[in-house]
């Protein structure tokens, strides 16, 4: 469990802070996505989690231990429990794939025989057993990131920090890397904290999300909650997308259905029992944070005015549909 308390970071006195009173808690086993535009402070926040960046104020509690209060050698001990992967991979070009993955094991003084065995396991895990003796410059971007992941996992950390790890990769490679991260999360129970500017990354694998803007935390929480909360703008941005150039009028509603509700005859009942006309304008269905989510834009047609609209909205909310009026 990582608890961030009132974290602040100011690079230069007088300048706007890069982080301002950020508090979060990251539960064990989560895949926690932190979203934000560039310059929002997400990279600074991530780098504070292993103290690559020292915060100006606040605390970071890693399983109850305050990282900011540790001595240098204690901090190095803790860092061995936190793997990190990077947008630019940061592999050592003077070493083969095998030797790159072995670096954390050398640092934690694992004996050579065990080192070899562990590296073999990891090569197998990331599907690069045939590239053990290749040098990083001979690999594709996706392969380099797999090496980065294997290296980050070598010392069996409890946490993995991902600094825009897929931002330099094409969509297909991104998907395969995200899949690998999810497998690792499930198989090893590793807690993953990732920062990204891509909503799709969060939709694909995260179960928790937070958004940052101008160094401040805007929203944070389990994605299921964010999605279900009509007030959440982060939740709204995570809903399935569709082209929304279609017109809207005073009778247009946006409806989101979750999980089992997707198969329930809610609209049917609306038409049959409430006697309302429903025109479908747009729709999309996606799996987001492990939940099936459908999103519809409908128009109720003319007539009936406000009373009808409210009746329909009440009915839908009662059935568990997230309803927004446009």
């Amino acid at each position, binding site marked *: 469990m990582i608890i961030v308390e009132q974290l602040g970071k100011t690079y230069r006195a007088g300048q706007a802070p890069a982080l301002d009173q950020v508090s979060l808690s990251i539960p064990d086993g989560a895949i926690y996505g932190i979203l934000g535009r560039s310059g929002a402070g997400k990279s600074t926040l991530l780098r504070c989690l*292993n103290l*690559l960046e020292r915060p100006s104020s606040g605390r970071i509690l890693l399983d109850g231990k305050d990282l900011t209060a540790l001595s*240098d050698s204690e901090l*190095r*001990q*803790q*860092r*061995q429990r*936190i*793997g*990190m992967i*990077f947008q*630019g991979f*940061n*592999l*050592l*070009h*003077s*070493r083969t794939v095998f030797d790159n993955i072995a*670096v*954390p094991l*050398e*640092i*934690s003084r694992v004996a050579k025989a065990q080192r070899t065995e562990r590296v073999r396991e990891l090569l197998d895990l990331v599907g690069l057993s045939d590239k053990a003796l290749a*040098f*990083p*410059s001979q690999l594709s971007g996706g392969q380099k990131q797999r090496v980065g992941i294997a*290296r*980050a996992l070598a*010392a069996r950390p409890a946490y993995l*920090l991902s600094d825009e790890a897929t931002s330099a990769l094409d969509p297909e490679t991104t998907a395969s890397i995200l899949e690998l991260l999810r497998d690792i999360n499930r198989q090893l129970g590793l807690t993953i904290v990732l920062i990204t500017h891509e909503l799709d990354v969060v939709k694909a694998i995260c179960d928790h999300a937070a958004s940052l803007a101008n160094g401040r935390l805007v929203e944070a929480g389990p994605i299921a909650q964010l999605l279900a909360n009509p007030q959440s703008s982060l939740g709204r941005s995570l809903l399935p997308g569709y082209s929304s150039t279609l017109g809207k009028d005073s009778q247009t509603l946006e409806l989101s259905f979750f999980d089992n509700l997707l198969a329930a005859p809610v609209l049917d009942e609306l038409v049959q029992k409430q006697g309302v006309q429903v025109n479908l304008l747009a729709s999309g269905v996606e799996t987001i944070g492990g939940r099936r989510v459908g999103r519809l834009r409908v128009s109720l047609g003319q007539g009936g005015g406000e009373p009808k609209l409210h009746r329909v909205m009440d009915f839908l909310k009662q059935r568990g549909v997230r309803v927004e009026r446009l």
Partner: protein
Amino acid sequence: MNRMNEWSDILQLVLNATGETLYMVVLAGLFTLLIGLPLGVLLFISRRDGLYPMPRLNNCLGGAVNIGRSLPFVVMLIALIPLTRLVVGTTLGSTAAVVPITIGAFPFFARIVENALDEVDKGRIEAILAMGGDIWHVIFKVLLPEALPALLAGITLTLVMLIGFSSMAGIIGGGGLGDLAIRYGYQRFNNQVMFATVVVLVILVQSVQSLGDRLVRSLAHRR
């Protein structure tokens, strides 16, 4: 005097002088490496924004290195005569010449090392720190291995410079090819010896340079 003109004698002279030059270059090169490499690392890590900031020390070392580099080598050669006598016991001969040559070369080499390390991607250093590495891990697992091609190129450059320095040591009687050029070429107008000296020096510099280039290239290929 006549016998001097016979090629076999010239050959003997040039061979001996080449041996002395190589002796000076190899010995001074070794000391330059031993002093310059750690000094370059220290200069790099002690920067204000470095891995182990020691701005005061960095300023002192940087200043000393700059003084060392700003003196023309001929001046240093003469200015260092008392120090040479103190260290070696004499100021004549190739062994004595190693002292000023080393002192003239290591500040230059230290700067080359510092610049080579500066070229190493900061992200790679960060990756080692993030996995719990200390400053020694950073130096020996990242900085030196990752900068190796640049360091080798720098060593090549320094060796060529050392050949030049060792020739100048002829001025204070340091032996070697420079000494030969001064005593036979300059003072006795012996053109054959002069010519042979030039040929050997060119061959020496060329072979050091191409050997260095080949090493750098073979390393770069692997990466």
